[in-house]
C-alpha cells in the first residue's frame, strides 16, 4: 500500500529506488494527485532526478551490457526484416488499389 502525501525528499528517494530496481511503473502508479502536484511544482525534485539518473548510470549501467551482442543483432535483423515485409505488403496493396484490379475486371 503506498504512503499518501509523501514529502518531496521521500518522493525523490522512492524515484531513485525505483530507477535502481528497474520498476519505474510501480513508482508512477503509487503517486497520488497531491504528490503529482508537488512534483510538478518542485524545481528541486527535477534537479535531484538528474543526479539520480547519473548515479544510476555510473553505478549500475554496466549490468545492462550483455557480453554476447550477436543475439541482440539477430533481434535487430528480425525487426528490420519484419519492417521490410510490412513495407512491401503495403506497397503491393497500394498498387492494387491504384490500378491492377480495374484492369483485371475489364478483361473479364
Amino acid at each position, binding site marked *: 500500500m503506498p504512503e499518501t502525501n509523501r514529502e*518531496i*525528499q*521521500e518522493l*525523490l*528517494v522512492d*524515484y*531513485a*529506488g*525505483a*530507477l*535502481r*530496481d*528497474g*520498476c*519505474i*511503473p510501480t513508482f*508512477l*502508479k503509487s*503517486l*497520488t*494527485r497531491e*504528490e*503529482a502536484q508537488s*512534483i*510538478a511544482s518542485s524545481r*528541486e525534485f*527535477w*534537479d*535531484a*532526478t*538528474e*543526479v*539520480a*539518473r*547519473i*548515479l*544510476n*548510470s*555510473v*553505478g*549500475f*549501467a*554496466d*549490468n*545492462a*551490457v*550483455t557480453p554476447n*551482442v550477436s543475439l*541482440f*543483432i539477430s*533481434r*535487430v*535483423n528480425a*525487426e*528490420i526484416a519484419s*519492417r*521490410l515485409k510490412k513495407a512491401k505488403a503495403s506497397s503491393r496493396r497500394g498498387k492494387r488499389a491504384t490500378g491492377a484490379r480495374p484492369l483485371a475486371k475489364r478483361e473479364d
Partner: protein
Amino acid sequence: MPFIDRAQASLHSCFSTTRFGYGTNAEERDAMNRRLRNALKGLTAPDVERRRRAMEPFVRATFGIFIRYLYRYLGNEVECEDVLEDVYADIWEKADRLRNITTERELLRTVYLYYMRKRLRQVYRRINRNLCLSQRDMKNLVAPELGILEMMSQTELRQALRQMLNRLKARERRAIELWMEGVSIRAIAIELKTTVGAVKMLKFRTMLKLKKMLRDYCYEY
C-alpha cells in the same frame, strides 16, 4: 561491517576506467572510431542491402554506449534492449540524421534527440492514462530535455563524480556510496546510526549539492 567493504570495493571498480568498455589507449579508441565511421557511411547509403550490411558493425560499435545511456532513464535491462531494438530499426529505416556526424558525443546526442526520445516516451504511454502525473511531467521524467549533465559521457561522469564525492562530507559520501552499492535506505540508516527519514533528507540534500557541484564542474571544463 562487511557490506561496507563490499560497497567500497564495488565503487572502486565502478570508477575504474577499464570497465568502460572502450579500452584505454588512444590507438584502440581510434580503431573503434574508424569502424564506426565506416558503418555510419554504409548506413546513410541509398542502397538497402548496403544499409542492412552496415547495421551489424554499427550495432557492435555502439551497443555498449547506447544501452548504458538508456539504462540511465529506464533502469531495467529488458526494457533497455526492447527500446534499443526499435531505435536501431528506426535508424536503419531513416538514417539521414546521422549523415555528417564526426564525433561519438554528436552521435549520441543525435540518436537521443531523434530516435531514442520518441521510443522512451512510448514505453510508459499505456499506463499514463491511469496516472495522476501530467503528460508533460511524465515526459520530463522518462525522456527529459538534454541538460548539460545528460550530455557527459560515461567516462567523464565517472571522473567528475569521483572528484565530487571526495569533496562531500564523510556522512554524505557514505550515504551515496552505500546507495550506489545497492544498499536499502533502512540499512543505510542502521549503518549511519540514524532514522530512515533522516537518511532520506540527507540523500535529497546531497543530491542537490552534487547537482550544483557537477554543473560547476561542467562549466569549468
